[in-house]
């Protein structure tokens, strides 16, 4: 598919350097799937859908900075949704979210709730103001909070809240890779799903730039079961734009 023209209808300031961009176009998505967002003349970057018509973005580099310059009525090009999303379990589920990792987990929580799942969310962020989508998670289940600076909830990392994983049928995790690796090491891998972030070029499963060993994040993922990741370079290193190994 060619990029679809998506006009920005609303911009919500979620926290410092985190914004949600709503579009006039909705996507039929499985939570966890991503879209390629083309900021014309600048770059195209992968983004998780945080609603069926929105992305939630942290300003981290040139492409996201250019996106932050856009306002209502401006437009971007969107390809997707691409990849494999979360496999939804309607039993007792635990969401483990770090920072903007909440973006794909919030629509997952809402969909799982609608399907009858009992949801607990471990929500982590650097500081209180960056606890993304707290209200959305609270609306569908129990929420436990951790902040790096102790401004809310447990003073420390969200992984420190992970103490009763055996009580859950399925665990869903998205956040910084180092945090996800900690979760993977603590839980039964086959009962946990992780949404990965990698440098993506084609988005079509062809070029191989996003591969974690032989797994294509853009096509076989971005959501993978923990037992698939156990045997890979996940949490050890990633590849930069050149394909060089970079330690996590």
């Amino acid at each position, binding site marked *: 598919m060619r990029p679809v023209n998506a006009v920005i209808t609303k911009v919500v300031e979620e926290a410092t350097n985190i914004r949600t961009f709503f579009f006039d176009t909705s996507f039929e998505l499985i939570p966890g799937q991503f879209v390629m967002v083309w900021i*014309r003349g600048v770059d195209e970057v992968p983004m998780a859908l945080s609603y069926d018509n929105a992305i939630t973005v942290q300003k981290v580099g040139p492409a996201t900075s250019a996106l932050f310059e856009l306002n209502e009525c401006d437009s971007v090009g969107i390809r997707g949704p691409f990849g494999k999303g979360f496999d939804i379990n309607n039993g007792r589920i635990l969401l483990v979210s770090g920072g903007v990792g909440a973006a794909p987990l919030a629509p997952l929580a809402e969909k799982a709730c609608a399907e009858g799942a009992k949801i607990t969310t471990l929500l982590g962020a650097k500081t209180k103001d960056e606890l993304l989508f707290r209200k959305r998670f609270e609306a569908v289940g129990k929420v436990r909070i951790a902040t790096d600076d102790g401004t809310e909830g447990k003073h420390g990392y969200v992984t420190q809240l992970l103490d009763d994983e055996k009580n859950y049928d399925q665990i869903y995790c998205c956040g910084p890779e180092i945090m996800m690796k900690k979760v993977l090491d603590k839980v039964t891998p086959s009962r946990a799903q992780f949404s990965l972030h990698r440098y993506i070029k084609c988005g079509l499963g*062809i070029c191989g730039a996003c591969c974690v060993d*032989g797994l*294509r994040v853009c096509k076989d993922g971005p959501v993978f079961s923990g037992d698939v990741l156990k045997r890979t370079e996940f949490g050890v290193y990633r590849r930069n734009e050149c394909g060089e190994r970079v330690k996590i």
Partner: protein
Amino acid sequence: MIGMLSLTLNGLKLKNPLILAAGIMGTTGGSLKRAAEGGAGAVVTKSIGIEPKSGHSNPSMVEVDCGYLNAMGLPNPSYKNFQREIDTAKEGGIPVIASIFGGSADEFSEIAGSLRADAFELNVSCPHACGYGAQVGSDPALVEEITRAVKSATSAPVWVKLTPNVTDINSIGLAAESGGADAVVAINTVRAMAIDIESGYPILGNRFGGLSGRAIKPVAIKCVYDLFEALEIPIIGVGGISDWRDAVEFMMAGARAVQIGSAVGDNINIFKDISSCMETFLEEKGWTLDDIYGMAHEV
């Protein structure tokens, strides 16, 4: 019959004539191994250069109605960081061919002289890299010089991948042959472009790129057919193969083996699928690989 698709090409033993094309799943040893598990007879790596290169900005690949348009821009970690990926790929148990690119004969030989691979494929055909690829490969004298230099830098077989974006592909193929190439690979992508009508922006970050996929198959078939008439060395056909019929057609045009690229995106086990269908076809026809090789030239 077991092994009816096996062949020896430049001394390399292939269990089938289906090779993963350059630039597809070729950056990590693990992804090349996965293509081996998917049934490939051999794999070609991503094109590797002298220095690490991040490539063009995105979008770098987009699906159009008749295939795919890409301008990756030769992203690669440099040969200095690539041997271990080749070594990992070798665990797949099939030949690993290193695709390499450079701006001069010296650069090509430096890389070929430093990497250990079962063969080298010289990328003198990428249509959108300034100073590299097709800018080198449109000049027969340069192609001959580079091929000769690489041949003296390595004892491994050397393949030269040709661009279709020239007036006469045979003259480039003949130059490669004169330079000592062991085979030519035809074709690389066809120069192409797409424009976003909502904004007027060219879609690719590089503004233009190369077309692959279904649309270019008839172009590639004709190139292979012409090269077969002109050259003594084997031709490896590539361009738009998405099923076993396409592979057979390339071989009838004169390809000893074929490479598969874009179609791997939707089916990484395509090599297995094509192999088994080709075997069935050959059995039904009572033909061997040798029978169909260049068949279109004999009828």
